[in-house]
Structures are given as C-alpha cells and as structure tokens.
C-alpha cells in the first residue's frame, strides 16, 4: 500500500492525481489549539492576571498553530503551478458543474451565519432585557453613590460626536473598498488574454491592497478601543475643547465597569453645558430637579453586560478579519510568485466569498452596535 507515489507528509504535493494523501498539519494544528486554550486559561482567572508564568506558553501554542499552517501551505503552494490543477466540479443535482470547494465554502458560511446569529440573539436579549441607562437616568430612580444596573449601548458614546464616529466610519469604508479590491484581483486573475507578468503584478497589487485595508481595519479598531486619537489644535473647540478623541478604554467603557460614570449622567455637568446635553422637560428627573427634591449628582451604572456584548461581538468579527489577513498573506505571497493563472484563479473567489461574508456581517454590526 505504501509502495506507490506517496509524497512526504511534510512537503509539497504533486496534484496531478488528486487530493493529498498524508499531511502533518491537522495533528500539529490540533495540538497547537489545545496548548493555546490550556495556557490562556492558566494566565487569567476571572479577569485577574495570574502572573507571567504561562504567558510564554500561550505564544508557544500560537507558534505551533503557525507552524502547522506553514506545513499546510507548503503542500498547497505547489497548487496550480505549471498546470497541476486539481479543481473538481460537482456531479449530480443540485450543485452540478459548480466547483466542489465553492460548495464547501458556502456550507462553511452557513455555519458562520449561525455563529453570528447566536451573538446577535445574545445582544438582542440583553438590549431589550436590561433597562436603558438613559431612561433610568431620566426616571430619577437612582441614588448617587450606589451603582444601578442598566444597559449603556456603545452607540450612545460613539454616536455622540463626529470624532467618535470617525474610526468606525473609516473602517466601514475600508472594508467596502477591500471587498472591491478582492473582486478586482479575481477579475484580473481570470482574464485570459493578458501578459503573464502584468497579470502577476496586478493580482499581487490588488491582493496587497486588500491585505493593507484589513490591517488598517484592525489597527483603527485597536486604537479606537485602547489608545484614542490626538487632535490637531484647530479642531479642539469642535470636540468640547478636548485635545483628543478619548478611547473607549479611557472613557471607562470596560467589561469590568461596575461603577461607570459618564458626564452625560451628571446633573451638574448638564446644567453647566446646556448645549451638550439636555434633560427632556417631561422626564421625572426634570420635575424633581425643578422641585429641588432630587439630591442631584452623578449616576453610577454597572454596564458590564453592555460592554461585554459590544466587545465580544465586534471582537469575534475582528477575529474573522484577522483570519482573513492570515489567508491574504498566503495568497499575496503566492500571487507574487505567479501562482494564480486563469485555471486556478477560482481559489481567489473562495476567499472572496469568505471576505464578502465578513463585510456583510460588518454591514449589520456597524449600525446596530456603533450607531444605535
């Protein structure tokens, strides 16, 4: 049985006779995932950092995963080079004459839809289940100093000023442009009547731009979450006089924020800045303040659940963008070595389907998590 043409389980594979036989990457990838999950749980417990002991092991786990991807690509790198293309089409109803791996990609997208549906259902259940912080504030049923549990949507913070919306808006444009560039890469990879080298450069450049836009998306998101943006001098007075757009971290919108205080919920601040915030006349709090019965002061809110649903849902989407970046790195490398010819260009379409799906999810996440 082991006599015939068994290519090595590590190495490149000659695709002339069909699917690969042996490969080390599944075994090593599973080992890497197990190490990563085990050691990550060793480094943190219920949010407290447990010391640097197991942190290096987390990177060992990621390293093992990376190594197995290298082995996986080593077998695929030879795919489609000088005519060795193995792109079977499906037979029989209902997917006849469609590439088998495109059907597989659609099956994968179906289960991805269920992942994001679960995350959205969690968000809906908590958003409609827990009373909104603004309504609790306006109802006046809070006492300064004790934390009240309410739902503070990130949109209330982000949509409050143009500068807060800016990173999210740029990210949306970035994803749409990257969706477009991946389509262009596919178009030129499939164009038959084209000089070899021109096609190679065009496909590589388009894949490279998609890669760059994806990196931009993640960096903007990280900055928006943790760092914040410094503003030039002349823009300060448009931003309530602040010198920078504060990051969500600086605003205190965190998963452990059980005593979150925002100046939108501070009666003194509102009286001092009437044009920024206003308390609707028909609200109970307004009546209390007129009658002077309300002690006034700063509402303290436990917004852990709203921060958790925001960070985990947008974080999962970010993880899928990261997955896309990993895929794009391999494809750009392969395109640079002239790997994409019209008859194996369809593999760019598979990645395109995944990438458009990630953009599709962002079309839903952006309005309902950032703006609403």
């Amino acid at each position, binding site marked *: *049985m*082991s006599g015939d043409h068994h290519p090595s389980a*590590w190495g490149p594979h000659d695709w002339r006779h069909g*699917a*690969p*036989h*042996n490969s*080390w*990457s*599944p*075994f090593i990838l*599973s*080992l890497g*995932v*197990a190490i990563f*999950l*085990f050691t*990550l*749980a060793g480094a*943190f*417990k*219920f*949010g407290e950092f447990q010391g640097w002991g197991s942190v290096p092991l987390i990177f060992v786990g990621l390293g093992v995963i990376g190594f197995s991807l*290298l082995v996986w690509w*080593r077998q695929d790198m030879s795919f489609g080079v000088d005519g060795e293309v193995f792109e079977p089409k499906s*037979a*029989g*109803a*209902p997917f*006849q*004459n*469609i590439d*088998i791996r495109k*059907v*597989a990609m659609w*099956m994968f997208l179906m*289960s991805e839809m*269920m*992942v994001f*549906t*679960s995350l959205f*259902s*969690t968000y809906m*259940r*908590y958003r409609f*289940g*827990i009373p909104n912080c603004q309504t609790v504030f306006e109802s006046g049923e809070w006492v300064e100093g004790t934390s009240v*549990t309410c*739902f503070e949507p990130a949109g209330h913070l982000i949509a409050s000023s143009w500068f807060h919306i800016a990173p999210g808006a740029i990210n949306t444009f970035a994803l749409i442009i990257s969706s477009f560039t991946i389509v262009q890469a596919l178009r030129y990879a499939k164009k*038959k009547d084209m000089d070899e080298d021109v096609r190679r450069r065009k496909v590589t450049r388009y894949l490279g731009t998609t890669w760059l836009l994806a990196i931009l998306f993640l960096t903007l998101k990280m900055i928006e979450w943790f760092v914040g943006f410094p503003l030039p001098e002349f823009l300060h007075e448009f931003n309530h006089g602040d010198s920078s757009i504060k990051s969500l971290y600086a605003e205190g919108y965190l*998963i*452990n924020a*059980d005593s979150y205080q925002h100046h939108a919920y501070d009666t003194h601040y509102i009286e001092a800045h009437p044009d920024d915030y206003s308390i609707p006349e028909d609200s109970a709090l307004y009546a209390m303040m007129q009658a002077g019965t309300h002690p006034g002061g700063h509402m303290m809110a*436990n917004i*852990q*659940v709203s921060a*958790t*649903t925001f*960070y*985990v849902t947008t974080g999962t989407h970010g993880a899928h963008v990261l997955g896309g970046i990993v895929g794009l790195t391999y494809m750009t490398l392969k395109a640079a070595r002239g790997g994409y010819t019209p008859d194996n260009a369809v593999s760019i379409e598979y990645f395109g389907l995944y990438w458009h799906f990630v953009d599709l999810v962002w079309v839903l996440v952006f309005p309902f998590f950032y703006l609403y």
Partner: protein
Amino acid sequence: MPTRSWLQSWLCITEVKRLVTKRSKAAIFTLVIVAAMLALPSAQSLPGGISGVQQSGCNCHGAVPSESVSASIEGLPESYNYSEVYELTVSFQGGPSQEGNINQGGFHLWASEGALSVNDATAQVYNENEVGHTDAGNDQVSWSVTWTAPATDKNVDFVLHVNSVNGNADGAGGGTSGDMWNKVVITLGGPIEVLEAANPFVVLGVLIIVSASLLAITLAYVFYRKDPEAFEWDNFAPWLADWLTSTDHKKIGTLYFVAGLFFLGVGGIMAMIIRIQLAVPGNDFLTQEQYNQFFTLHGTTMIFLAAMPMINGFANWMIPLQLGAADLALPRINAMSFWLQPFAALLIFTGVFSGHGADTGWTGYAPYVVSEGAHYGTTMWAAGQIMLVASSTLTGINFLTTMAVMRAPGMGWMQMPLFSWSILVANVMLFLSIPAFGVGLIQVYLDRVVGTAFYDIAAGGDPLLWSHLFWYFGHPEVYVVIVPSFGIISEVIATSSRRSVFGYRSMVYALAGIGIVAFIVYGHHMFTSGMSPTLRFVTMLTTMLVAVPTGIKIFNWLMTMHGGSLVYRTHTLWALGFLVTFTLGGISGMFFPSIAMDTHLHESYFVVAHFHYVLVGGTVFGFFAGIYYWWPKATGKMLSEKLGVLHFLTAFVSYNALFWPMHRLGVWGMTRRHHTYFVTTEEALGSLPMEAAGWNMFITVSGFLFFFSNFIMVFNMIVSSVRGEDAPDDPWGGWSFEWMTTSPPPAHTLYRLDDGSWGLPTLKDANEHIANEPGLLSSWFQRLMVSDDEIEEASH
C-alpha cells in the same frame, strides 16, 4: 518535485530525518518506557492527603522536629468501645525544659473522630477534635484530657504535638529558652475493623490507565498478527506516522472507532463508580463533590467522546463507500476533524485526577458554571468542548459537501441508501445547531478567564440565556446521536429480512421531518425553568409532534419485516433489540410534553430512564448492530456468531434490568444528580418509599452485568482479527455499493464493476420502468441548476 523552494530549504526537514539513526531510536523507546514506569506511582499520591496542623506540625516552633523530645499518650485502649469515655494523660520527656522554670512546654492534640474535652484550666478545647495547653498550663510536662469514643465504627487518628522549652523566649522567667518539638501519631480502631475507604479518583485513574494500556497492548497484538513483518523496529516510526498523518477516510474511520470505543469504556467505568455510590441509601463512597464530577464527566464523555466519534467512525467508513466516491470532498479537513477530538478529551480530563474536574453537569447551567464555586476544571471542560465544536462543524461541512457533490452517477437524491440519508440529516442538524453551543461555551470560557460579564447576575446577566443557547444545540444534538442509528437499523433490517426497506420515500421525509422538528422543540428541557410561559406552551405543542415522524419510522421497519424471510444473525438480533428498547424509550418520552406531568417528572429518575432508553437502547444498540454488520467489510474477517449471540443475550437482559426500574424510582421522587437518597423508615422520613433501596441495589448489580457483558464483543473483535475466517465481499446480501468492493477495501477504493473491471460504480435503479417525468419540485430545481451546456461559456 518542484525545485527546492526557499521555504523547504529554510525548514530543511528532510535532512533532520536522516540524522535519527537506529541506535538513537532504541534509546528514545527505552526512555519512554522508563518515563511511563515513573509516572504510574505518582498517579497514586495525586489527590491531596489530610492537611493542616496535624500533618506538618506547628511550624511556629521551627520546621524540624528534634529527636531529643519524645511525646506520649497514656490511657488509650487497643480498640475503643462505642461512646466510652477515656481519661488520657498527654506528656513529653527530654528537650531543654527544667523543673522550676517559669515555662517548660506545651501540647496540641488532634483526634480525627470522637470528642475531646479538658478537666482543668491547664488545657483548653479549640473544637471537638482539637485541644491544647492554656497560658496557665504552659509550664508543665503532662496534661490530662478526656476523649469520648464515637458511637459507630471508625478509624481514629490521634496526632499529638509537644514542645519542650527552657523558660520564656524574652528571658523574663530565667533560662536559656531553647525551643524543641516533636510529634506522635497513634491510630485506633473500633470493635469492627473498618476498611480504609478507597479514594474514588485513584480508582478512576488506575482503571483508565489500566484500560488504556490494555487497549494499546491489544491493538499492538492485533496489528502484529495482521502483518508481522511490518512490525520491525524501523517500520514502527513510518507506520505510526502514517496513522498520525493519514487523510484516508478508512484510516480516520478506524481511528474514530478506537477513540469512541475507548471512551465508551471510560464513560462506563464512571457509570459503575456512580452506581456503587447509589447502591445503598446514605452511602459515602463518593462525597457529593466527587459525585458531581463523576456524573458531569460521565455525561460529557458518553455523548461527546464516545457516541459522536462512533457516528463519525461509521460515517467516515461507510459514506464514501455507499456513495461510490474515492474519498471525502476535503480529506485534510477530515483528518483535522478527528485530531481535534483526542486533544479535546485531554483538556476535558485535565481537572479530573486532581479532584478539581468540572462539576457542573453535562448541561453546565449558568450562573453556577461561571461561579467561583465551580471547580477549576470547568474552564478546561469548556475549552475542550470548544475544540469539539470546531471538529463537528468541519465534519458537517465535509460530509454535506461530499453527499451533495460526489454521489455516483445514477444515484439521485432518492436513490441514496438510508444510512447515507441519516448521516446527511444528522450533519445538517449538527452543523447548524453547534455554533450556538460554541458561542455559549466561548461566553463561559471568557467569563471564567477574561472576566467578561455574560452571566454575572449582579451586572444583569441572564442565566436563561445559557439554557436557551445550550438547548438550542442540545436537542438537535440528541437527534444527531439517534438518527445515524435509525440509518443503520434501516439497512440491517432490510438486508436481514431479505426485502427492500418499506416506504423508502416516507423514511426520507420522516428523517427530514425530524431534522426540522428538532429545532423547534428544545423548550421542553426548560418547562420548569422560568422561561416565558408563551414559549413553554409553544414548545409543548411542537414536542407532541415529535412522535409522528419517529412513529412512521418504527412502523416502516416493522412493515419491512412483513413477507420477508428473517435471517437470524447477531446484527439482526441487535436490530430487533433496538426496536424493543427504542420503542419503550419513545413511549416513555411521550410523558414529558404534557407540562402538568412534567412538573413532577422533571429532574427525576424518570427522565434518566427515558434518555438512557433512547441513548443506550437506541444509539448504542444501533452501533452494536452496525459493528456486527460492517465489521467483515471493514476488516475482512468474520465475527463469531456464537460470541455475538452470547453478547446480545447478556447485554439485552442486563440492560433492561438496569434501566427499567429507574422509571419507577422517578415517579417515586428520586432526584437526578443527588449523590445519595434516603428511604422512609419507621423512625425517619426519607424522600422515597422503603422498596427504593432494594431497587437501587438491583440496578447496581445489573449495571455491572451490563458493563462486563460488553467485553464479550471486545473479545469477539480480538479473536476475529487474529483467527477469524476471511469475509466474502457481500456476506449478508446487501445491495449498496460498499458490498461491491473487496473486504477490506483497497487504500484507493475501487469497486468490482459488472464487466469485471475495477473503477467507480454507476447505480442502476430497479424502479426504472415507472415513467419518471420530473415532478413539480424536481423540474423547478432543474431550472435552478447549472445546465451542462453553460459550462463552456462560463469559463471564458
């Protein structure tokens, strides 16, 4: 081979292999053996012993005891009488203490059982088990205390610590204040000698390690006997590497089977330990904390590490063969799906041997699962299952694509064998419901690791969110586990009664019906959980519907036997056994949709009886039928019928004796997940009538019978692999493609075609004569599909 790419030279893997010579391989092998030998004893001492002051000595007097001081307790009998009072004198000699000094020494006495008390001001009682000297009694060499013996048989440990001092440390009372101490340990028994209770984790650890090594030895022996020359030392590494790296659906199927059967054994061992604990009321073989870990891991192991891998084992082996395809659509993803499972099992079991395994039940309800009270192993339990979710999603994608695109020519959707249909429906349900479980598990993992607040009650977290996400996956999961058995039973009954299955089309629609109904009924797991009443009512109605498609299938199987000529082989017996037990399980399941009864029966042993009837009686009996049916095709050897029938008779009888009485216990009010129960006697009111104790002992005994009866099958497998007679291509006279290839099928599966040549088959249809102009549905589908003439123009 393409020119050496920069990547290959950088990795230079090929050079490394040449360096490992034969001698160094032998060295590595012995090293592994020595390491294993060393590791075994440590498994003994893992669980923490008694700790606290009794063991380590009061370290306030320095870490090292000194020999010059000797402590003694007078007045202790050889063995105590029940609740007798004994006067003890606790004293010490030696050390720096001298007569007349202000401070000569002190003592601390600990007794594991009974009650200690003092007679004078020189000693004080910390608690029932601990006495020590007082300030007044800090300058003498002996003290008198009284000890009342316990009223029952116990092993009593006395640990006495004494310290000998020469005056006070600050020198107020004169003397050089040298401070030396020592301790003495005395054990005492009651009138009847009490055996030391075995530590259940040691029992579990030893049993798992022993069964793992037995399995390894058996596999090695079987593979050795299959082809001895492949068993040289230098063939060992490539042979092992071939199994670790294979993407051949047959090899991965075998790997799934070995993993599945091993964990079926491990789950069985846990079940036996649970049954020992429940044999008598008020038993204390397992504490509640240990019992929680055992029933949690029994559930998780049986469903995720035994049943699911065995389904994948059958599917991996049989789907490509039944469809007439060479292999699955995505072979490496197939290998990936398998290798995620053993590592997931490692993660799930990490906590167990240290006594901190997951103790949340296989359902892991919030907020207990994210509370600090839950054992630390729960995080690893969640992490392991996240890997299983990834594995199941990839399996789902792989099989759906294969069945949709790689069927043999001539095999339309309505010509597929029913086992393939059952795997298709099972995988559709699985890969659409398991992401909900994955998201729920990631939420728990993040809550327990990063500190998010999905289920933090103070922050407004909602425990029912986990129940919804879990059971949205949970109910389709239990159908995923039973539907492949339906497929196997349809094949086995049709072939055994020499007839084509009755109502093929209604069988397929029933499978599809179960697939749809599975998603809208999950609310019946939460009838008493505070879920919104509207949803409870809706799911009550939909759960009633579940009986219809399942009923159709059972009646179709019975009708298949009509007019047939039943050939009694072991797989036929198992199929008929399945029909009996699964029908009983289905009927007992119909008691739950009516909420008025469910409020009494929920979380009782009636539920335990129902799901063991459909899980063990349904799924596992279906697997046994499948194993006896396809073993000749997969291994090329016949199983012995005598051993098979013996296995069936012993297992079937002991199975029913094991699970049927649980229905009665449930109605009486025995609650699930309680480590012990109490029966009503004349003096004490318990939660159960008197007979419950007898039934529980009966269940435990039949449980052990059922556990050991399954080893007859394992023995049968070994004998068949080693000395079984060779199996023909089609031993039972089945019609589907897997019987057209040799047994075992060659590495690259080829089928013997009618003209004697070898290749991929095309299916003929005996129903050709029915004028099959396409119906409404299929003509609509025709217009949707990519027609053949469009291909040229598409790839311009």
